[in-house]
């Protein structure tokens, strides 16, 4: 069974289309890059999978189920923004994940935070923006989820932080699980990708297995992306 399957998926904000008739199946156990320029519909697609948005038309299935309470229990979602109340302590965030997500591995979260030197009794508002983002990433990746949705995890961070984030994703995600990672920074994520989906103006431009496409075209995903989304 596909980890994610969507058929004719369409989302409009008023009259403006964000996704137009997207149909694709994403296999389980792969790291898939959702790649596209700004405004291509990546975040909208991820929000629909996370259950935050309802599609205007079409259907989406996550491990055979429509987005809802049951899929939320198996999807680990990292949004672009800080979702925790800044007044919370890291230990409060851990407790919240432990209470709501049966697949949350608290020991693993504490180990990763310890490696980062983040005090669990510290308040989020006392941390730098980068540290807060790392706390959020650690909590999301410490779940033994079936599907990880990572929306622009490396956008707006320095190269060292990018390395840390990509390392965390590769080493922490549950084997057999699927990772969907949206970004427009192809060069940074290309080494870890098994598959890719190019989204442009809300439509799937190209998708497939990263290795196969590289062999067939003789180009890296980054080169292919620049070719497909050339601005002039």
């Amino acid at each position, binding site marked *: 069974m596909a980890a994610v399957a969507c058929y004719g998926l369409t989302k409009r904000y008023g009259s403006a289309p964000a996704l137009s008739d997207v149909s694709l199946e994403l296999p389980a156990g792969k790291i898939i890059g959702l790649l596209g320029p700004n405004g291509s519909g990546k975040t909208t697609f991820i929000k629909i999978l996370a259950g935050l948005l309802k599609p205007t038309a079409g259907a989406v299935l996550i491990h055979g189920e429509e987005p809802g309470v049951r899929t939320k229990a198996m999807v680990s979602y990292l949004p672009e*923004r800080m979702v925790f109340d800044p007044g919370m302590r890291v230990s409060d965030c851990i407790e919240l994940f432990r209470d709501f997500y049966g697949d949350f591995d608290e020991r693993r979260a504490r180990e990763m935070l310890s490696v980062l030197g983040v005090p669990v009794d510290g308040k989020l508002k006392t941390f730098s923006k980068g540290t807060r983002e790392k706390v959020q990433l650690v909590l999301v990746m410490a779940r033994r989820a079936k599907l990880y949705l990572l929306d622009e995890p490396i956008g707006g961070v320095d190269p060292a932080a990018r390395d840390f984030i990509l390392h965390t994703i590769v080493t922490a995600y549950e084997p057999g699980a699927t990772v969907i990672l949206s970004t427009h920074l192809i060069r940074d994520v290309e080494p870890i990708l098994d598959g890719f989906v190019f989204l442009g103006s809300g439509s799937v431009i190209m998708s497939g297995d990263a290795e196969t496409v590289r062999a067939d075209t003789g180009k890296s995903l980054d080169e292919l992306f620049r070719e497909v989304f050339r601005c002039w």
Partner: protein
Amino acid sequence: MLVKLFKHDFRAHSRVQIPVLIAIAATAILGFFNMLFLAGTGSGQLISEESDGYPLMLSAAIGGTLLIFLALGAAMTVMAVLIFVRFYRSMVTDEAYLTFTLPVTAGQLIGAKFLSSAVWFFYGGVALTLAGGLMYTGAVLAGGEEFRVAMTELWGDLIDTLAENPLTVFLLVLCCIVTMIRWYFQITGAILFGASVVRKNKALAAVGMVFAVNFVVNLVTSIFSTSSLLGYSILFMGAVEYRDFSPNAWLITQICIGAVLAAVFWWMSVRIAKKSVNIE
């Protein structure tokens, strides 16, 4: 899940509400000494009524009392506003990305928020009652024998009146509870509706919708309430016959109206949270 949601929402409220409770406690202590001052001055124990400074001291004591009451009222208002600010933040702003990806139903989300808000509002009410009790104690201690006798008579009369009308007392309490529940869901429903119909300036839209819904609901309920108060049929059907005003009948009407509106706004809040959530 409801219990877990309640626990985390209660904790989130505590981060902002505990300072307000501390402020109420501090104001109550100030109020206690102010009442000692007011009652002592009023009864002539602190200063003679013929003294030149008497009017000034009495004015200061009365002004202080007014300020204390204003501060307590403001603290309760702040408490209520903070309840809805927390609701808005967790349902519409960045925090909503977490709220709406928890594996819980929209009904559980809204229900847990209502329960934790109710508990914090109850705490506020208890704090305010204790503050009033402390100030009353100060007044009794400094008010002299005459004041104590007058107060004892007043309380005695009040208790007798309540004991004679247990059904009215029960209906009054029930009416207050239903009205507060209706207010909560009316405001949460309006916040979610306001924030769901615009893509920008959601806070402004939410506040505007709270006032708009409040205006419409008050207009409609006042028609029912006034007609009921005047002793006419609430639905204006037929020529309507005059009947004696009954507080119990009026309270029952209010309870029914409140319960219906509470149910409607509950349904509206849950439906918006489930179907058309629109996060910033």
